[in-house]
């Protein structure tokens, strides 16, 4: 099971956090802080695996990938395969890339809810449900449409429209 997904930049600022096991926010922040402390101490071109038991308890593994100014971090347990999760990070990033065309840190910063939507298509309650980025894109687009449609009505608040037609 996947315990958490984090995106943070190379300064240690979290850009996305998603925990699939409930943790109080203070503990979340502490964990993010500790993860960053480990990551930034690692040289380039070393393995992508970190022992995370000291941060997330027994049987916790951490896989991260460094893209430009961002760390993508997945924390999971022994029910997942390390290399498969590494591939999954790749799928996630590819999907982001397709959505935003050459994704960069700013896209992640400004599209908080869309990134969550994408992630939720891939991982559901800690389980990986979709590994095809095309499928993810399809669903995300539909959801966006649906959101836009429900918001469009809302551009003019009900009370205002009522007042106009009077």
């Amino acid at each position, binding site marked *: 099971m996947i315990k958490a997904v984090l995106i943070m930049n190379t300064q240690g600022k979290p850009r996305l956090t998603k925990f699939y096991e409930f943790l109080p926010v*203070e503990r979340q922040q502490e964990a993010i802080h500790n993860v960053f402390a480990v990551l930034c101490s*690692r040289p380039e*071109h070393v393995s992508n695996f970190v022992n995370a038991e000291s941060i997330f308890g027994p049987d916790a593994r951490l896989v991260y990938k460094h893209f430009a100014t961002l760390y993508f971090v997945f924390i999971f347990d022994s029910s997942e*395969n390390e290399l*498969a999760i590494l591939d999954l990070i790749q799928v996630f990033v590819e999907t982001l890339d397709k959505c935003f065309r050459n994704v960069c840190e700013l896209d992640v910063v*400004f599209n908080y809810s869309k990134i969550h939507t994408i992630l939720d298509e891939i991982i559901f309650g800690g389980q990986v449900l979709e590994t095809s980025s095309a499928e993810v894109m399809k669903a995300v687009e539909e959801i966006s449409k649906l959101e836009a449609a429900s918001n469009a009505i809302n551009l003019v608040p009900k009370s205002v429209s009522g007042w106009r037609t009077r």
Partner: protein
Amino acid sequence: MTSSSSSSSSNSIMDNLFQRTLEDLIKSSRLNFLPEHAFISNAMDEIRKEIKSTDPHTKSTALQKLSYLSSIHGIDMSFAAFHVVEVMSSSRFSHKKIGYGAASQSFHDSTPVILLITNQLRKDLKSSNLFEVSLALECLANAATLDLARDLTPEVFTLLSSSKVYVRKRAVGVVLRVFEKYPDAVRVCFKRLVENLESLDPPIVVAVVGVFCELASKDPRAYLPLAPEFYRILIDSKNNWVLIKVVKIFAKLAPLEPRLAKRIVEPVCDVMRRTGAKSLMFECVRTVVTSLSDHESAVKLAVEKIRELLVEQDPNLRYLGLQALSAVVGKHLWVVLENKEAVIKSLSDEDPNIKIESLRLVMAMVSESNVEEICRVLVNYALKSDPDFCNEILGSILETCSRNVYEIIVDFDWYVSLLGEMSRIPNCQKGEEIENQLIDIGLRVKDARLALVRVGRDLLIDPALLGNLYLHRILCAAAWVAGEYVEFASNPFQLMEALLQPRTNLLPPSIRAVYIHSAFKILIFCLDNYLMQNEGAASSYSNNMAGGDSVLVIGKKSTEALDLPNTEGQNYDQDEGFNPRNTNESSEDFPVGNNVDRVVTHESIVSVFNLIELVLGPLTANQDVEVLERARNVVAFVHLVKVEIFDDSVQNVDISKKKDAQVSAVIKLICNAFSMELGLVSISAQSRVAVPDGLVLKENLDDLQAICGDTELPSSCSFGVGGHHFDTTFDTSSSNLVKGEDSGPANESTSLLEHRKRHGLYYLPSEKNDIVSDNYPPANDPELSSNINDEAENLARLTEQSLLLKKKPNQMKPRPVVVKLDDGDVAPILVKKPEPRDDSLSGAVRDVLLGSETGPSSSRSNPSDKPSGKAKEKKKLSTDLPSETKEQLPDLENPNSRSKNRSHKKERRRRSPGNIVEEGEEHDQKGKKKSSRSHGKHKTRQRANSPLNSQTPVIPDFLL
């Protein structure tokens, strides 16, 4: 529209128009006008206002901002829980999505408002919009509580056969959480979950094997009957993700059933051979080396693959290759030895993961024959490495070499000098461990003491080492060794100077106290030697001596009996101590044995006295009591001896002979006290002392503080390792001394008596005292075992220690004897049996699997596992008396009887007929189970605890 509502809506228009969206918020946070905390508190003020708005758009935007702040900046959003519920119930999809997202993010078992969302979830689970269903399922997957899981099980059950893959795969995923929270859901949903294994839609299979992989990792045995299904997937599936999960499942199942292992080993190897995906290949390797390691050919194939991994460019693959090697090392050491070069090479990899993994492997290769070689290589690596890895190396050397009481060490002289060498490595921070081992070896291995003293001396005389904080503990051990085994020292005076060198003021007081005490021991040793040289064999003296000695021993024994932790060594002491010849031997033999320049001259003694007075004189006003007391003792003793022996004209032996005899008797006595061997203390010594009747250990001892207030604190006993007790008042005549020894404890006991009179509650009953001091209770003392009810005590009994092994000199054996307490001196490592965490869940799974797949006949044949889970669930769910009649109710009804939520109950009533029709099959089975449960509850539960042997025949024949 009423006027009031229009005014509120006009307010909301204003809110709406001027509200910052999430994007505005993020933008402003990046402008850096305000420091972060000010920005956040501004935003929070805003959000708190907006979230109370009646306009759903304003409210949901505020909630979205709050979710953002919570997840990125760690703001607690529990205050908004009710608003989350409101936003969830909005009819607009965009609002609903924000609401559900916030609920998934912030709701947990103890969120009070979670009780309110049941109906909303039920409604959305039945929605025709599949994305709404998905939102509800996701919320359930992240935040389901027992109540939610129980109340929404029927909806999840329905969705498990939804025609839309998008929904069905999520329904499968949510089952994991539902089962975990509400194991009875297994009875409803399990069959349909298994059916989904046969689905033709790949995403569904991905989801189902994922769920089973999770379930099987918690309690694999319950899922053995599903082996054929998994086997089919292993053979047929082409999806790597699915195969990884199935291989993982088999890794859990195979160790439980050897016939299954035999069956799957070929397919797994096939997959390993033909797959191009490294992830799947590695998973197969891992499964073979962990769960199928008895199958020679499979292991060989896996090893081939591991070798390929080890030479890859990608550090990830090399790391995993090493990991696989460590998994295989327990059963097939040859695999590691074959790859020795790759492993050693990895020690200097730049990747810390790889370094640590290879270090672990190198340590696994260590054996009696190569320990010296490997340690030399590793110490060289340690010298070159960064501090972290250096200490990692040192730690693992120390751990490996000391395993099982230095099992692999043959040459202790070498090991002791290695310890000395390791102490001098600049980055060494393992002071504590080295300290322990130096002392431990001193106590256990007589033959290593010479080397120990030599290493200790080298450490002590180096003034540079005193400046290193991490070395203080090692120096403490070195000082203790030097004092305790001074008879091995080639030059005691040099040791004395080292112990009293000026830079010792850099040491913490507790270690300084050890230094002073060791100096005292050395002083006594020198004086004793000096006297022996001068006197030869004085007849009057030895008579005196023999008498005094036995008295001393008795006195010592009685003082020791008072403090329990020390009494461990008592037997040993008695053996040595009751035979005066023995102790004489020990102090006389050794100087002969390795006397280098042991001629103690008058001048050297005088200079030592002067040195002591010079250095320790100022310390008699030291602030620390340990240092102060010890310094005073030594200085007072020096004064005494100096006056008695040396102020007279020493040349005139005849005149001062009488006085000499008295002083030398004192010195002899102390010397004897010091030369008594210190034994090992079993770590369970204290716990083995039976708690006397009437002593309540767990009583609140708060009022003890008031009592302690009026008595002085005992100011000794914290002295680290040397446990000798000696009285501080020395008299010139030995008879007086004996009295003094006697009166010391006597005084103490009178004041103790008084104290006891006042606060009798905290004392052991007096008659028990004798029993306790007498000896330890025998191993299988019925009294003791009657006390045993928790594990800790059980453990103590397991590690029950017999008497110390006596050393037998055996010249033929190259390895020196290492004294061991039978199991009593090493912290026992118990292999923890993995206990199935949720009994109730696996019990329920068993019920369903056995019930549905092998028909009622077999389910009746082994009723033992049926009620186990069920009974427990009942206990958990309904707190009232488990009366049989109540349990006859349909399962879904029963737990609700105590539910707080009346409205839910009503609803379920209305629904229940439909359910019963739908799940008629299950209810039928339940009826049968119930009849089988009417055997005595006791009996069944007891049997349920035993391993389920009856389970194995359930695997279908084709697999076996």
